[in-house]
């Protein structure tokens, strides 16, 4: 039976296949050994283990010894045996320094980088003269003095290592503290949100909805819904100056004071005046709060309101037109005692909607740094205000967040919508 003829090319191809098959285990073994040697070298010159420490101390000791021996050698009338001993010692020292240099070279990921690094050059300088000039060269002694530099690289390295470790420890402590602070702030934020009414009681004659989208930092917006003893309902929207924990505390104080005082002072302007005095009496940080407060009589549709420095709300009439509740207001609350807050009255007709908001809505920025603005809000209220209060709140929040896009939210966004005339 004839074998098929084997072409020279096929033979060559087979050979080139066989060669790697034979060589692969050898190469693999070489690679393994190389990796092992490098690992050992690295653990000795770059590691932090006990062997690395011992090696490091040995080198430092040898440098000190070798520098000291220069002085000893120059003592006149040194016995022959001592000179010989120092001669041998110098050879041993250079041998160990050479071993150290090779170890560092093997361990280095970037060989050229090591050779031309400060330490690489200093290490080379500590051994090269011996090989180039021989142990007896007269001015070798002077060159050996350069080994002082070697000492410096070792101590420098130790100092840098220590500082790096200290820094890492401090960073870890800082990160832990920051995480703890963040967790506490989140709890505070949750508490703050929890004191806002989650929903408005269903009630014949009026219906309301509200939403607050907190900014990334703690803010001080709030809204409130107050059932007054005479059957009327009070509605509040407010914005504390600034951000952070102080604003959040002041918000809690303001909300509690206003809620309590509203039960005893049915007139909105009087209620704001009383709240203002209460806040001025307990305001160590000179914070203040803008408040719009209105009281609706669900039987008659009469709305009475007073404004303490807050942006005027909108009324969307049942027919769709949007008006601003412009009645003259007073100063923000908490800034100055004994302020006057005039009460205004407006008659609602069935189907009218009252839209209260904070400047987080109108002053939301988009990535191009444009303001959302009062006009956009008025347009949304005009076009989409015909549905339920909850639907309008949702619609406006969507519109603002779509507008803001990727721009960071710098202020709380708070909205409350009240309708009168639901049967």
């Amino acid at each position, binding site marked *: 039976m004839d074998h098929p003829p084997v072409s020279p090319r096929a033979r060559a191809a087979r050979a080139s296949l066989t060669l790697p098959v034979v060589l692969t285990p050898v190469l693999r073994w070489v690679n393994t050994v190389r990796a092992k040697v490098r690992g050992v070298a690295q653990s000795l010159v770059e590691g932090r283990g006990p062997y690395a420490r011992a090696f490091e101390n040995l080198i430092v000791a040898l440098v000190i010894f070798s520098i000291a021996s220069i002085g000893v050698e120059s003592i006149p009338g040194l016995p022959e045996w001592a000179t010989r001993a120092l001669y041998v010692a110098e050879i041993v020292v250079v041998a160990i320094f050479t071993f150290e240099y090779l170890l560092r070279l093997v361990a280095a990921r970037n060989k050229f980088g090591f050779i031309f690094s400060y330490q690489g050059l200093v290490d080379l300088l500590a051994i090269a003269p011996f090989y180039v000039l021989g142990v007896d060269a007269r001015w070798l002694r002077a060159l050996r003095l350069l080994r002082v530099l070697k000492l410096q690289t070792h101590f420098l390295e130790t100092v840098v290592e220590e500082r790096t470790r200290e820094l890492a420890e401090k960073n870890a402590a800082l990160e832990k503290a920051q995480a703890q602070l963040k967790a506490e702030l989140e709890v505070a934020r949750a508490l703050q949100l929890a004191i806002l009414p989650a929903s408005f009681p269903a009630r014949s004659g009026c219906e309301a909805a509200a939403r607050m989208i907190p900014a990334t930092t703690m803010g001080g917006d709030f809204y409130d819904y107050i059932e007054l003893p005479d059957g009327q309902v009070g509605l509040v929207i407010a*914005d*504390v*100056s*600034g*951000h952070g924990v102080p604003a959040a505390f002041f918000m809690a104080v303001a909300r509690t004071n206003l809620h309590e005082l509203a039960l005893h002072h049915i007139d909105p302007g009087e209620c704001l005046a009383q709240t203002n005095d209460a806040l001025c009496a307990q305001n160590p940080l*000179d*914070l*203040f709060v*803008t408040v719009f407060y209105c009281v609706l009589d669900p039987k008659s549709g009469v709305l009475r309101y007073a404004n*303490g*420095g*807050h*942006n*005027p709300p909108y009324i969307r009439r049942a027919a769709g037109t949007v008006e601003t509740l412009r009645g003259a*207001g*007073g*100063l*923000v609350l908490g*800034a*100055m005692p004994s*302020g006057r807050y005039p009460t205004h009255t407006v008659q609602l007709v069935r189907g009218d909607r009252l839209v209260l908001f904070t*400047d987080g809505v109108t*002053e939301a920025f988009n990535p191009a740094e444009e303001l959302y603005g009062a006009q956009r809000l008025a347009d949304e209220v005009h076009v989409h205000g015909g549905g339920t209060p909850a639907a309008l709140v949702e619609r406006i929040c969507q519109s603002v967040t779509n507008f803001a896009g990727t721009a960071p939210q*710098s*202020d709380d966004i708070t909205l409350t919508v009240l309708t009168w005339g639901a049967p």
Partner: protein
Amino acid sequence: MNLRIEATGNVTYVAPVGRLDFDAAPGFQEALERLLGGAGERSAAVIIDGTALEYVSSAGLRAFLLAARAAQRSGIAFALCALQPAVREVFELSGFSRIIPVHTDRASALAQTPPGRA
């Protein structure tokens, strides 16, 4: 935020440039406190020129409130002038224009600002 401060005679004009928001407010407040309180040479009046002031947040308003109080304590007249319409609206809505006089320009601010006791 940059502040352009000009002292002419016994009146100091302070012209904030840009947005006076939560981040800018502390620096602005500190600068005004230096002019209005404490030791050193003081003007009889400090007038804020709002020509280049683009925006004032509630934290910015607080800086104005503290400045007005410091001015009152030190007996220095304190007023605003040449506010941009949006900023002027913030001062009117918040009621701050009732506690800090707001004038249309430097000339009328100067004419209507009674020099303080300092």
